[in-house]
């Protein structure tokens, strides 16, 4: 039976038809019937058209669509004035080119294309939408699926792709005819860009001017600028098969396998020491599954969501104890090296060496316990592909290529990723520059992923290029805020004042006037975004009143606005050594919300009554108006408190705060809060030249912990209140107990090397045992151990309270049962949500629907967790870069500690500069004489003077620190050499 669905006219401009299809989801199959309405008044949006302005109707707001397509579009030598129609494959593969400001104007995006793009890639879809919104590129969406003239019904036995292709072609030919009929003043051609040969051929027979992307770019007057941006078309490049990666399984098989538990899904995590070793954490196994070697990784990238299959038990292995960097394995590869075998012999040898280790050692219990299951990738669910920053490998550029496009390799800054093959004419020019590349595909016959050049960031090692590179590498949104985000800001701008009329509207009536309280803020020096301020006073009953006042960001950032969406997507502000990437626009962050001194500000206050032992007697939450009396830096606050001659009320309040904070801290430590360490350093910038001048370790003052304690207290109180009010969707933060397996290695090293152990029963036990681990000979050992213990911890994460049971809310590090982030809404989005929830909990204003929806909250949490992590990494990378720069002038010999020992190198941490570096066996001494004692975590080798040396984990070593430019990645890093 063929569905003979006809159209039925309902009213003059409206026709209805129906679509019948099968939805196959999770193995099910459901027949779906949809009514589909067609109109005859969808305008073509060309300024040239004489007809459409008269037929179009206003939208629900009574507004008319803007006609965007230019009345004098670009004229080509072989195509005349033209508008472009893009096919889906062009948008998907060449979005960078389409976004380019030097070409691609007056573009028509059929709705069919928009929908296909959305189904294939959401990030590209959002970029395309952004293009259509901005006026300068003159992109329009034509809703061809809803237009009577361009709608096509699916034909019998036609695949949906063919049908969509036909719909796009129909749109092209309709447009051409429409323009011919209705714009006599200028003849405009429709050029259909399509890289699909079949579709293009059909279009040409239908009389459409269809071209490939490359053909069109060549026809442009500024072809030279754009030519290199044309992505590699895999169908054009018929390579000799360099390698045969196993094909991925079909989706049906992957889904079936995951369902019945024979295949596992997880995120690939490539070892930072060995680019051929990946691990996938799968809930079914205690230990991560190892992916060893190119073939097993099967084209997976770091961060991809993949499906893996276990290998037979005979192939289970220990994680490799070697350091393998791609540069070492393939330094002499050339991109056209066609005779390359399936796997390079060098790789084989390295793998075989690994294999030998695991075979040689008798399967004693200890080895058996270290054996990990191995697996291979059989499918990729979602690629983590994004823009990557790297630079062209000089060896891969052939000298005499001239202007013909040639293949060359781009080595990415991220060492966990393989190099990327691009085709460019400009390779010689781009040598020594940081460039951005995008990946197009990774066919199973190609040893390396294929990509194309996007843009150049500038010279390697220039501060701007490096900063932008690391922002890109960590997926930090650093573009300026868009216009519709800035439109959400108060129109008064910097002149905004707290209203004088406190009976103005219902909201201001609910605010409490706290301007009489002696509030002050304590922050790092030169802090511009002051999130928090404090006050304290003695109450007549002998208790203390303590108030924490947080910037009332949600007064300005209302849920559902573009500003809110931007904040939610940025998730956090990012702090680099020389730069801050704001989550919210400057106007809010540093002025209107910031609790600056001497001015009135809106705040969200938490006010406790604490007894003299810092127990909470009562807690109140309120929206308020405050006036900060002073903004202190930590040092100034310390000085003011220490100076006995200050007896004013403000200083007295600060003394109360300090005294209470000590009690709070003691209580926290008694409950088992961890005092962990990370080698944090600060880079001082020379203020004149903004060159980094020196590095120092961050100092802790008592006033630091004063602020911290009350912020913790506020966060805990708010978390309880929000969880009470919204048991399913409260925004909380948890820190899971570290799994014992994380500490196995550390404990073993401690036992073997120092005869000590840390216990893991509870955070209290861990804290106590860490305190006990003291080496009298080495005062730094305890801190070193804390640094290493920190790395065994789980990362804290944001979550919505419905996702876990109450016992799992625990914050392990802080040893509290419930926690959230409330105190920094200017720079963290979690706090914004917590503010809104608290405001709703105290009846200030109703809570936006999105913060009451479990699914939406989970999406928000997932994003801010990722952003938070990326921001941390970006911050560390920035410090690493600047430390490298500082070391250029400060090469010295320092004390370091071996923290990991491999069979071909050691990892050393230098506490003074917070540098951690790998020293390879080659630079240590003689490679052949080296003996790696795995049981004792030690490496014995003959050094360059001929003497035999043994270095084991925790050993103190003297190292030379030099600033070295890595030749392969062109990253300047402080590199260590054993003295």
């Amino acid at each position, binding site marked *: *039976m*063929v*569905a*003979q*669905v*006809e159209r*039925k006219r309902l009213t003059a401009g409206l026709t*209805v038809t*129906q679509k*019948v*299809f*099968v*939805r*196959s989801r*999770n*193995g*099910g*199959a459901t*027949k*779906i*019937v949809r*009514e589909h309405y067609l109109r005859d008044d969808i305008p073509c949006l060309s300024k040239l058209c004489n007809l459409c302005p008269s037929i179009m109707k206003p939208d629900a707001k009574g507004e008319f669509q803007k006609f965007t397509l230019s009345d004098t579009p670009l004229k080509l030598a072989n195509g005349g004035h033209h508008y472009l129609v893009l096919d889906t494959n062009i948008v998907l593969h060449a979005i960078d080119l389409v976004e380019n400001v030097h070409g691609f104007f007056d573009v028509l995006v059929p709705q069919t294309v928009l929908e296909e793009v959305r189904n294939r890639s959401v990030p590209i879809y959002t970029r395309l939408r952004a293009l259509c919104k901005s006026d300068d590129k003159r992109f329009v969406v034509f809703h061809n699926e809803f237009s009577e003239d361009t709608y096509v019904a*699916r034909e*019998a*036995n*036609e*695949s*949906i792709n063919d049908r969509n292709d036909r719909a796009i072609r129909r749109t092209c030919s309709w447009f051409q005819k429409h323009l011919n009929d209705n714009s006599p003043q200028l003849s405009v051609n429709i050029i259909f860009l399509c890289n699909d040969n079949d579709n293009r051929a059909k279009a040409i027979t239908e009389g459409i001017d269809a071209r490939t992307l490359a053909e069109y770019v060549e026809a442009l007057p500024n072809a030279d600028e754009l030519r290199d941006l044309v992505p590699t078309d895999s169908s054009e490049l018929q390579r000799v098969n360099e390698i045969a990666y196993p094909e991925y399984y*079909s*989706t*049906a*098989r*992957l*889904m*079936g*396998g995951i*369902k*019945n538990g*024979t295949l596992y899904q997880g995120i690939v995590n490539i070892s930072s020491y060995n680019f051929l070793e990946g691990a996938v954490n799968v809930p079914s196994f205690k230990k991560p599954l190892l992916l060893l070697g190119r073939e097993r990784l099967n084209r997976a990238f770091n961060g991809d969501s993949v499906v893996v299959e276990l290998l037979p038990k005979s192939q289970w292995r220990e994680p490799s104890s070697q350091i393998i960097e791609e540069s070492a394995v393939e330094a002499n590869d050339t991109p056209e090296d066609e005779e390359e075998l399936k796997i390079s012999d060098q790789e084989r040898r390295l793998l075989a060496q690994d294999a030998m280790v695991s075979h040689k050692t008798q399967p004693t219990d200890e080895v058996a316990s270290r054996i990990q299951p191995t697996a291979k990738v059989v499918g990729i669910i979602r690629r983590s592909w994004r823009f990557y920053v790297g630079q062209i490998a000089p060896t891969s550029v052939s000298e005499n290529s001239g202007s013909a496009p040639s293949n060359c390799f781009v080595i990415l800054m991220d060492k966990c990723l393989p190099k990327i093959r691009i085709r460019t004419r400009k390779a010689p020019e781009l040598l020594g520059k940081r460039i951005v590349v995008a990946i197009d595909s990774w066919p199973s016959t190609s040893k390396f992923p294929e990509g194309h050049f996007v843009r150049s960031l500038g010279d390697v090692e220039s501060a701007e290029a490096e900063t932008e590179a690391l922002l890109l590498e960590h997926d930090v949104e650093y573009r300026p805020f868009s216009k519709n985000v800035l439109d959400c800001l108060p129109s008064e701008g910097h002149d905004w004042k707290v209203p004088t009329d406190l009976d103005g509207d219902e909201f201001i009536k609910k605010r409490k006037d706290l301007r009489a309280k002696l509030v002050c803020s304590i922050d790092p020096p030169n802090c511009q975004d002051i999130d928090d301020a404090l006050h304290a006073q003695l109450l007549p009953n002998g208790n203390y009143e303590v108030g924490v006042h947080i910037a009332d960001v949600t007064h300005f950032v209302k849920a559902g606005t573009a500003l809110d969406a931007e904040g939610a997507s940025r998730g956090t502000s990012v702090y680099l050594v020389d730069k801050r990437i704001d989550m919210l626009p400057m106007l809010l962050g540093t002025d209107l919300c910031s609790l600056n001194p001497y001015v009135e500000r809106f705040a969200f206050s938490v006010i406790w009554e604490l007894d003299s032992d810092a127990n909470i007697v009562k807690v109140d939450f309120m929206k308020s108006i405050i006036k900060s009396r002073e903004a202190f830096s930590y040092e100034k606050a310390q000085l003011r408190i220490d100076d006995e001659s200050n007896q004013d009320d403000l200083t007295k309040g600060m003394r109360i705060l300090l005294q209470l904070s000590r009690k709070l801290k003691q209580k926290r430590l008694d409950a088992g809060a961890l005092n962990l360490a990370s080698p944090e350093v600060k880079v001082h910038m020379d203020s004149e030249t903004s060159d980094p001048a020196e590095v120092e370790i961050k100092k802790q003052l008592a006033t630091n912990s004063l602020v911290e304690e009350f912020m913790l207290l506020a966060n805990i109180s708010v978390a309880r209140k929000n969880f009470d009010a919204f048991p399913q969707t409260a925004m909380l933060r948890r820190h899971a107990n570290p799994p014992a397996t994380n500490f196995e290695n550390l404990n073993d090293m401690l036992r073997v090397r120092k005869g000590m152990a840390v216990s893991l029963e509870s955070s209290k036990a861990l804290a106590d045992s860490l305190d006990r681990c003291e080496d009298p000979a080495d005062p730094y050992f305890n801190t070193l151990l804390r640094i290493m213990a920190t790395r065994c911890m789980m990362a804290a994460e944001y979550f919505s309270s419905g996702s876990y049971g109450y016992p799992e809310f625990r914050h392990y590090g802080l040893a509290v049962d419930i926690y959230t982030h409330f105190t920094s809404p200017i720079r963290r989005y979690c706090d914004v949500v917590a503010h809104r929830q608290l405001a709703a909990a105290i009846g200030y204003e109703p809570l936006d629907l999105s913060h009451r929806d479990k699914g939406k909250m989970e999406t928000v949490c997932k994003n801010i967790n990722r952003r938070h992590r990326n921001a941390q990494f970006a911050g560390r990378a920035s410090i690493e870069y600047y430390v490298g720069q500082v070391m250029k002038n400060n090469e010295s010999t320092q004390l370091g500690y071996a923290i990991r020992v491999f069979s071909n190198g050691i990892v050393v941490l230098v506490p003074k500069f917070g540098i951690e570096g790998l020293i390879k066996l080659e630079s240590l001494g003689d490679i052949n004489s080296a003996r790696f004692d795995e049981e004792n975590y030690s490496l014995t080798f003959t050094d360059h003077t001929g003497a035999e040396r043994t270095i084991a984990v925790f050993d103190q070593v003297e190292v030379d620190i030099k600033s070295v430019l890595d030749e392969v990645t062109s990253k300047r890093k402080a590199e260590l050499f054993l003295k």
Partner: protein
Amino acid sequence: MKLSPAERSYLHDSLALQPPIRPDARSPAQFRPLEASISFLPSSNGSARIRLSDGSECIVSVKSKVVLTANVSSLILVDVDVSGYRDDSNFVSNLNYHLQSILNSHFPTAVLRLTSRYSFKIFVDCVVLLHTSYPLGLLSLTTYLALKTTSLPKLVSEVNDEEVEEQPTFSDDWDQSTPLIPTNSTFQPPLLFVVAVVGDNVFIDPSREEQEVSENGMIIGYETQGVISPFNNISLSDREVKGMKLLHVIKAHLLVKKCGEEVLKALNSVAKDEGGNAIF
């Protein structure tokens, strides 16, 4: 409707005559006129509706779901809903039982197998909107038509998943769906006929008045090959129930055999003729 003793006696006597006279002048093997239409529920896999001249009306919809064969006891599930009766009443559960059991025993569920692990399970939902006489015959005819018009989404993944499990995937094109009962297939869905016994005569498709005076009733299964089980006895009226004679059984068998063939032909032409599908 209650018949007066005079009406009852008149009706009974005329039906017991040789040859009998039915109140609406039908022959013993003749059905009441009916109007059938198919495929009118757009989101069902198959559907049918039959209306009788007295206003009785029945709607049947068939929907499908992919299941793991090992997890379900039956691949066909019938659900009957009769307006005015509770779902757990004897009346409804009896109707349900009759339809379910004949499908269980005479519908080759092999056609529902997708792969070695997965099958379609079909849900046959019947609604009797209005009925005057015992609605089983009506239900059975409508169910037959609905099953005849049922299509199932086309499987595009591997059929053999014995060794390696695959999640079934289907073509998104509804036009590619395959009929549950292929046009050239040898089997057809089974039918149930209701036969009333008055005196020595048997009548197919008894009307309400005929049921009232009947002395006995039978439910008889039929398939392309001929009469099949069940061959059940049922009382169609609360009074005048008498014993069954061998003669009745033989006559009923012959009757069903005779009209079964014609009914099938008529229903098949309905199923073939109408393209259906238009929802407007």
